[in-house]
């Protein structure tokens, strides 16, 4: 009962946030709409016994990633209005038509139970930090270590991209 009420409240909030993200002309409103959607998804994680990923969702996504987005929006400037002129003339009508088809398809597909395989026996899944950490440091240890490498490469790449000033590169055609 509680889960049903939560599903409807935060489902509407998530869809409202997502639509306002696509709709808003101002990128700051887009970022706030996405933040609302991410909080709602964190509530759904809690409903599905994912306590640890819910916390990570709030801290990493709604906290760090969206702050990074807002930093870049402020750096680039929010006063730049987006032109509605299209280089490809039929792109937008075609996009809307395709989206109608896609929504119909996913709603039909989503109404069925699409998880295949048998339900594992044992106690109900419970995504506490203890259980997730146990999986992470035993069965998924190698992927976990590889993500550390990935993060180092990403940080080095971001620093390299931010380091070069315009006009420094050789063979600059601009």
């Amino acid at each position, binding site marked *: 009962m509680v889960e*049903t009420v939560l599903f409807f409240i935060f489902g509407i909030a998530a869809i409202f946030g997502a639509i306002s993200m696509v709709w808003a002309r101002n990128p700051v409103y887009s970022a706030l709409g996405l933040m609302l959607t991410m909080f709602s998804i964190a509530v759904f994680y809690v409903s599905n016994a994912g306590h640890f990923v819910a916390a990570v969702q709030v801290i990493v996504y709604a906290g760090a990633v969206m702050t*990074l987005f807002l930093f870049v929006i402020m750096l680039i400037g929010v006063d730049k209005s987006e032109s509605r002129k299209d280089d490809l003339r039929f792109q937008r009508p075609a996009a809307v038509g395709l*989206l109608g088809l896609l929504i119909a398809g996913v709603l039909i597909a989503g109404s069925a139970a699409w998880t295949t395989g048998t339900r594992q026996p044992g106690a109900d*899944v419970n995504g506490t930090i203890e259980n997730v950490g146990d999986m992470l440091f035993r069965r998924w240890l190698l992927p976990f270590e590889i993500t550390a490498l990935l993060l180092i490469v990403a940080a080095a790449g971001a620093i390299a991209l931010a380091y070069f000033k315009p006009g420094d590169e050789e063979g600059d055609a601009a």
Partner: protein
Amino acid sequence: MTVTPGWYMALAAVLFTIGASGILLRRNALVMFMSVELMLNAVNLTFVAAGRNLNVLDGQVSVFFVMVVAAAEVVVGLAIIVAVFRRRQTASVDELSEMRG
């Protein structure tokens, strides 16, 4: 009336579709990037719902890895957007058409 995993799948599908529409309809590179994040979040929701349905924890571990990859992707992507903006003074993807044949 109980919430089945199919409901979460349907909601995630709707969110994914809205994210795809953001990619198709918007021209601001930042908003397009946020749409990518929304699509990743929608897929994460399906992982968690399916993991609960099958009574395995692997879905939540997958969500954890997707989050790590998404964080790395955000850092590099925003750095690219800022670098392009410093050179071209625009974040609109339609004006960045110099690489086409």
